[in-house]
């Protein structure tokens, strides 16, 4: 039983890391109905910028602020150069645009800072320690606390404020949003900037764990099953989805793995996501499409 709990706790905490990436997708999906394929590239760009500044002797917090400003600038640029010309186009067009954008951002990040692997030390130990009889990682707990703060802030911002209501309005019907005086461009810029901030946080935590390198942008693929299970439109769903993925992949590896030769941790989330697609295509917390027939 103790072993089961330990695997479960480890899995849940690993899941939080997936959630952090997934939240960035949810934000942009909520505001424009588009799966932003470039989110992974934004994570890479943020982490690479931060670590490169750090290596050049810029203090920690200053690096953080400069990287944040860079992400905001990137968001403004994307709004101006990509989103504005494509306003009112079908979502698939925007999706293709984000696909292209991801290559541009990845390329730019590496052209700017080089392609070598950087280590990143946030000063938090990634060693297990015993808590209530369970072996837990301090780093995982830190990641979980960060995610909790992030989710609380974002939920408050997007459920209680005018920005939140505008966001839902823009996603629902851009034309109607314009007519009631919502500034589409501003909302998009805000959302992409916030997604950039979330990307920065995810990039720092993932970068500290895996090292800052090109493969960081591939965490997009890990976020996909999280989004399918949690729903593309719910920040809470991204958290729950991440926890489910994290816990189930670890438990599956430990308990089902030996039966079929192991190594199932990598593909188990996708099988789970496929099952969800069959049973509940909108995910656990996603908005179900309303259709009158």
């Amino acid at each position, binding site marked *: 039983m103790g072993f089961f709990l330990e695997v479960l706790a480890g899995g849940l905490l690993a899941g939080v890391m997936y959630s952090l990436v997934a939240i960035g997708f949810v934000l942009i999906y909520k505001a424009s109905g588009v799966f932003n394929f470039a989110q992974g590239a934004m994570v890479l760009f943020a982490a690479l910028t931060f670590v490169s500044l750090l290596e050049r002797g810029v203090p920690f917090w200053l690096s953080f602020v400069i990287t944040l400003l860079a992400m905001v600038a990137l968001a403004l640029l994307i709004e101006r150069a990509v989103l504005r010309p494509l306003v009112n186009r079908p979502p698939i067009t925007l999706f293709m645009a984000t696909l292209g954008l991801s290559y541009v951002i990845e390329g730019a990040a590496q052209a700017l800072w080089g392609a070598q692997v950087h280590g990143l030390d946030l000063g938090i130990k990634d060693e297990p320690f015993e808590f209530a009889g369970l072996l837990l990682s301090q780093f995982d707990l830190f990641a979980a606390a960060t995610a909790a703060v992030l989710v609380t802030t974002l939920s*408050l*911002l997007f459920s*209680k*404020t*005018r*920005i939140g*209501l*505008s966001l*839902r*309005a823009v996603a*629902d*019907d851009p*034309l*109607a949003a*314009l*007519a*009631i*005086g*919502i*500034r589409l461009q501003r909302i998009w810029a805000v959302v992409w900037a916030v997604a950039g901030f979330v990307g920065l946080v995810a990039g720092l935590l993932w970068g500290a764990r895996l090292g800052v390198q090109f493969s960081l942008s591939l965490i997009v693929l890990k976020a996909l099953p999280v989004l399918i299970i949690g729903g593309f439109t719910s920040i809470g769903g991204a958290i729950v989805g991440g926890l489910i993925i994290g816990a189930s992949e670890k438990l599956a590896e430990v308990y089902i793995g030996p039966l079929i030769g192991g190594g199932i941790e990598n593909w188990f989330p996708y099988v789970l996501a496929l099952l969800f697609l069959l049973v509940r295509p909108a995910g656990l917390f996603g*908005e179900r499409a*309303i*259709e*009158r027939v």
Partner: protein
Amino acid sequence: MSASPHISNSNSKGSAPLLRLEHISLSFKGVKAVTDISFDVAEGAITALIGPNGAGKSSLLNVINGVYQAQHGSITFDGEVRRHMHPHHAAVRGIARTFQNIALFKGMSVLDNVLTGRNLKRRSSWLEQALRIGRAPGEDDAQRRHAEKVIEFLHIQPWRNSVVGKLPYGLQKRVELARALAAEPRLLLLDEPMAGMNAEEKQEMSSFIADVNREFGTTVVLIEHDIGVVMQLADHVIVLDYGKKIGDGTPDDVRNNPDVIAAYLGTRH
């Protein structure tokens, strides 16, 4: 004949017009949508834009609230002359509108949709709103009260918590009107508010529009195909055909205008 630009021969209730379009021309990649259109809309009047499909009526509404930007001409709203409008500016200045193909936030409730119409009336900062401190709570209540009043006015209380996308078409049209009214507009632009309705629903909708105009003094510009409704509701009728203005005057003037009869009631319709 009223083909010359600028006639404000409507039964103006105010002196200076609330809205004046001068020589508006709009084209899309060389295809002319409207050509050299000028007219005045008197404060407090109900003005109807009529004309066959494709005459440029919706384009003209889109120019007035800035969804489209005309290549030529100017718009004067409440004394302010502009080359073209911008949707945000139009909303701030008090121009609200509805669309031909209902543009509502389908995933939200009726109440939330109406509340979005109050969007520009909120003064508290996002920080106050997020933490529900300072001006935010009182303001929330005030906006909600106002939204409820509009909902009551249009008799949609029974559906106030229903998701809009699930409501029947006629009700959605009414919710869209409610959202526009929630902004307390000075000028209300209605693009075919009665399209697709049966006779009873049309009657109901036109009495709502008349009520709004009478009780709040809201100036209305509407597009409508049903001539019976137009003649009964409007103080002032503007007739468009092929993007040009061919008639402008009181319903009676227009009814007797031979150009209008030829274009609108003639062979094509």
